[in-house]
C-alpha cells in the first residue's frame, strides 16, 4: 500500500535529492522497503543500534525524550530527520552510516510510535507521577514506566486492565495497551497531567 505517509516521504526524498530524476530516486536501490512490517522491524532495530549506541541514547527507549538532549521525536518526518542529520553536529557523523533506506525505515518506526498516544509514568521523589497524551477508546496506546530510584518499584495497573508491574532501579519498561476509557486514575499516582509535545 502507498499511503499518505509514503507519498509524503517519497516527495521529501525527491526534494532532498533535488536535481536527481524523481523516478530513479523512488525506484532505485535506495527505495524504501516494500513490506511495511519489515520496514518497521528494520527501523526499530536501527533505532536501538545505529552507530553502536542507538538513537535511544539521545531520545529515550521509545523516542519519548526521557529528559535526554535529543528530546521527543515520535512522529518525526523524513524532512526533519534529514535536517537533523545535516545540521545537528552530534548527528552529522552518523549521517554517512545511514542509507536512504535506513532513514526511511527509522522514520517508519517513528511514525508508528507517533500514532501511539503516550502515557508516561515515572517514579521520582518517592511517588509515581503521570503524564498522558489524548487517549482514544479502543486505540492502541503506549505506556512507558521509568523508575528514577535505586530500589525496585511496583505499580498496580489493575485500573487499566493490566497486571501489577515491577520496575527495576533506573529501568524503563514500555508496553502497548488499549484503553477502555479516555481518562483514568491510578491508586498511588499523582493527578495525571497532560503531556507537553516535547518532554525535554
Amino acid at each position, binding site marked *: 500500500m502507498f499511503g499518505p505517509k509514503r507519498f509524503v516521504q517519497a516527495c521529501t526524498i525527491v526534494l532532498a535529492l533535488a536535481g536527481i530524476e524523481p523516478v530513479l530516486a523512488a525506484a532505485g536501490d535506495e527505495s524504501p522497503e516494500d513490506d511495511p512490517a519489515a520496514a518497521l522491524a528494520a527501523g526499530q532495530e536501527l533505532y536501538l543500534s545505529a552507530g553502536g*549506541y542507538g538513537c535511544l*541514547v539521545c531520545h529515550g527507549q521509545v523516542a519519548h525524550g526521557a*529528559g535526554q538532549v535529543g528530546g521527543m521525536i515520535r512522529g518525526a518526518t523524513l524532512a526533519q530527520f534529514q535536517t537533523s542529520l545535516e545540521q545537528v553536529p552530534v548527528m552529522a557523523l552518523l549521517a554517512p*552510516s545511514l542509507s536512504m533506506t535506513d532513514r526511511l525505515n527509522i522514520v517508519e518506526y517513528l511514525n508508528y510510535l507517533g500514532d501511539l498516544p503516550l502515557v508516561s509514568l515515572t517514579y521520582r521523589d518517592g511517588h509515581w507521577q503521570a503524564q498522558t497524551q489524548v487517549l482514544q477508546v479502543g486505540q492502541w496506546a503506549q505506556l512507558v514506566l521509568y523508575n528514577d530510584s*535505586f530500589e525496585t518499584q511496583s505499580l498496580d495497573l489493575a485500573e487499566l486492565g493490566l497486571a501489577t508491574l515491577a520496575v527495576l532501579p*533506573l529501568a*524503563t519498561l514500555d508496553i502497548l495497551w488499549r484503553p477502555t476509557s479516555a481518562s483514568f486514575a491510578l491508586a498511588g499516582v499523582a493527578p495525571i497531567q497532560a503531556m507537553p509535545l516535547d518532554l525535554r
Partner: protein
Amino acid sequence: MKTLLRSTAVILVMIFSFAFAEAITVYKSPTCGCCQEWVGLMESAGHSVTVEHPVDLDKTKQQLGVPKALGSCHTAVINGYLFEGHIPEVDIVAFLANPPVGAKGLAVPGMPARSPGMAAQGQAYQGFKVIGFDDQGNYSLARQY
C-alpha cells in the same frame, strides 16, 4: 584572605588532578562526536586517553559489564573500573582516589544536555546524576548536578 584561600584551593585541585592523571581506554563509536568532546576534556585535564572503536560497541559494553539501565554512548576503563557516559572529570578523580568497597564504576546514563562533552563551552554542568554501581547490581547516588 579569601583570595589567598581560593588560590591555594585551585593549586591543590590542580596538583591533586595531575597526581591522579590516569591512562584511560575509551570504547566508542566513530560516528559519535560528543564522545570525542568528552575525550578532549579528559586529555585537557592531563589524562592519557586511548580510543578504541570496537565493531560491536553494544557487545563490548556487555562484556565489560556495563548495566543496561546505565548505558550511554561511550565507556571508559581506568584501573579496572568502568566509567560510562559523560561523567565530569572531577568525579572520576575523586572516585579513583578512594574507590568504595565492591564498586565497579560510575555512570551518567543517556545524554544529558548539560554534561561534559555535551554542554556548550563555559556552561555549568546541571540536570543529571552521577551514579555509582557495584558488582552486585546495586546503584547509589555519587553526585547530583
